[in-house]
């Protein structure tokens, strides 16, 4: 076991974690933050995506101990008040069906919009390459971002 201090959704948090414990397991089992999902534990599906120091990372493959002194933001950290414009747009445009991929998608798109406030559809798709959605076929997810950032309704 190893002691760490991780800033989780803005709150510095002391934790004692297993040496091999993944960030995902610690977030879900120790911190009660079950918004990040376990979909594959092989870095393929992106349902576990969180931001570490602002960058999207698959938390299922990242050691919790490696987050000592760093800032982790989960879907919960992006959802503290009313729905964000991105979240609102995602629901309205039909980008949410079963919702299991949705937290990871929202996290990645939040990081994308930080980097590219007006991303092209191609940029959105490339950014989402590491997020599998089995339900929507992606089109409405991509369009929700385009509509949001251009104000255009398809």
């Amino acid at each position, binding site marked *: 076991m190893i002691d760490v201090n991780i800033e989780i959704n803005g709150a510095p948090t002391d934790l004692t974690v297993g040496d091999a414990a993944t960030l995902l397991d610690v977030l879900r089992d120790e911190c009660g933050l079950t918004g990040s*999902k376990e979909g*594959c534990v092989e870095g393929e599906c992106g349902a576990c995506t969180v931001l570490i120091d602002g960058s999207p990372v698959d938390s299922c493959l990242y050691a919790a101990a490696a987050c000592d002194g760093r800032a982790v933001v989960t879907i919960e950290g992006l959802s503290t008040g009313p729905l964000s414009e991105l979240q609102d747009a995602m629901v*309205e445009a039909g980008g949410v*069906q079963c*919702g299991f991929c*949705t937290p990871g998608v929202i996290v990645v798109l939040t990081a994308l919009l930080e980097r590219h406030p007006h991303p092209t559809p191609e940029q959105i798709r490339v950014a989402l390459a590491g997020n599998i959605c*089995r*339900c929507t*076929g992606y089109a409405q997810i991509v369009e929700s971002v385009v509509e949001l950032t251009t104000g255009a309704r398809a």
Partner: protein
Amino acid sequence: MTVAPIADASEPQTAMRRADGPAKVRGRAQYSADYAEVGMLHGAVLRSPVPAGRITRLDVGAAESAEGVVAVCTAADQPATRAGWVLQDQTTLAIDEVRYEGEPIAVVVAATRAQAITARDEIVLEIEEFEPLDLQRSAQDGARVIHPDWADYVPSMGEYPREGNLAAIMTSEPDGVDEAFAAAARIVESTYTADRQYQAYLEPKAATVSHDDGKFVVHTAVQYPFNVRDRVAQLMGVRLTDVRVIGETIGGGFGAKLDAAVEPLAALAAKVTGRTVSIRNSRQEDLLTCPCRENAVVTMRTALDENGAMIARDVVVDMDNGAYSGEMPWLASLPLHIASATYRVEGPTRVIARLWYTNTAPTGAFRGVGGAYLYSALEQHTDAIANELGEDRRAFRVDRLIDDGTPSLSGQVLEDAGILRVAFDELEQVAPWDELLADVGPNQGIGLAAGVWMTNPMPGQATVRVNEDGTVQVITAATENGSGAVALGITRIVAEELGVDPADVSVTMPDTAVSGYDAGSQGSRTTHVVGRAALDAARDAKAQLLEAAAELLEAGPGDLVVANGVISVAGTPTVSVPVAEAAAAALWSTGPISASGSYATPPIPYNDACGVGVMFTAMATPTYHVHLAVVEVDPVSGRVDVVRYIVIQEVGKTIDEVGLRGQIQGAVTQGIGYALTENLRIGDDCRYLERSLEAYRLPLAVDTPTVEYRLLEHPDEAGPFGAKGAAEPPLVFVAGAISNAVAHALGRPINHLPITPEAVMDVLDGSA
């Protein structure tokens, strides 16, 4: 917000915020693995590492004494019952034989999941292996019988033809087939094969079960809670209602979550330990044991006369059941409905459909079931015939389309099959065929697929309550598997009928102790069947509401209208009362407002002499579809990209267009995966070659086209506002359209699904 009414076709629909959307985008929706009880234990399942054999040693002692372990369950702990949806051939844990890689043998129960997994590795398991049988070997004369006691197994819904490794067989053998072939001017024959497809929902299966006083409470995310209830009850040897299934949010199912999976394992563990036990699959466990769309071999022969008319057809289908029978024996009849669908065969069709036990994971339903490969075979065969006759592929089809009143091979009269022609005409408006052909680029090809699909007719129920604050509660066991059938469909239907804002309509999660029977989210049935039940209930509730309002407004109920949460006298909007007030007043006058509706599609007449072993007799509430694909082949890699995809779909009535579009886009994407990227192969040793999401490649955002679609609306009298089922069919025709497009691009067909870059490269390289 005001949402444009369903019934008013002149106003474009405003997007309705789906009821479960906000929780899902916040990460607050509770899926099965998110449900937890304080002090619950965790189970880890010991699964067979080999596809077939006899267990010669199972030593759990070391596991029992491992750290944190409370118990290890084995077959000795389970009731001596067998269970199954159609045939009772399954047990919770393997008794002395294992029949597929992944079959459960024991459950280790510990304080933490990690401890259970570690302890599981301590179990000593020895298996004397048998030669595992795949589809080809199982069907051979003299093959080892995988279920020696097959004759003793009890069918759940009536007996059907089966014997030895033949898990089910359906035959339809009208006279005259051989004669027609003997007299044919030409015969076209082809054989098509398809690999399995894994549903690959993002949420691996999980369940949490408690056992008290002989009763089980099961928290799980499943598409058919009542069926899971039945399976757990059968396996645990208790009455149906001694099992209560409470539904959690489903992270995708696509048919794989219609039947029990980890629930019986957790139930057994709960019974043995007297504690609540939670079990969840790793992704690998989930992939290895999922009831996938079956692999199959389809041979089609058509006899043609000198005028190019199709005068007879002969179809043989061999399907892989896997080691145990889930829903598959029912589905073995599907070939009868597709063998000569869509395009007129002016003569008899013989269909033989055989379902075989093998030493592989049991197969089951995946959106569109066998239709996905059956229509692909039919459509490729149709192209082959058109090409043989030198006819344009579209003209060939349109000239032979079935029409209103055409009977299917089961004798079902397809009363509105003429919609197929309307659909072809609509497609021609969107993408004129001759223009497509003229513009087709190098390495590109165009393909068509069309046909009929169904809306599952099984029963559903809903209760509608109008609350004292004007909100509405719908109580139903219908499941929201993500499609929006509940969060959009049922919600909007009830809101529309009662004249309230959809945001004020709330639908319960399923609970088999509370809600009436529902046959699950399958076969696109929820919006149509449960929507109808909910509509009937809402109508009744509305009548009660208007009766209460009539008293307040001193008017006749027949003079009142409801809109935007307000009840007013028609034509005199100032004489009004809010729904809330009327509902509250009702408590003391007419009684709390509550009404129930129940519906199942009436049985469809068919010819009961159409065949032997026909378990699936008609396509209820049929819908008609035409798909077109444009593909481009990469000459460097053999990869196929879908550059354009068009869906023309009959829906009866659009309840929510955003939701409907999501079903079309999502289903087509799954179909593209089926046709091109997803490959689940069974090795000679009956083990899957692909065992992770790295190897089992799902379509990604970067590869997926935006599907163009047009919706046809020929309202169904029985459906809510005329709606028919819509979610399954957009997958069914994709492989056919893409296969035909690839064949067009390459100049020769590839008769296997998926069409891999390898297969394409064999053609490009000249080595095919």
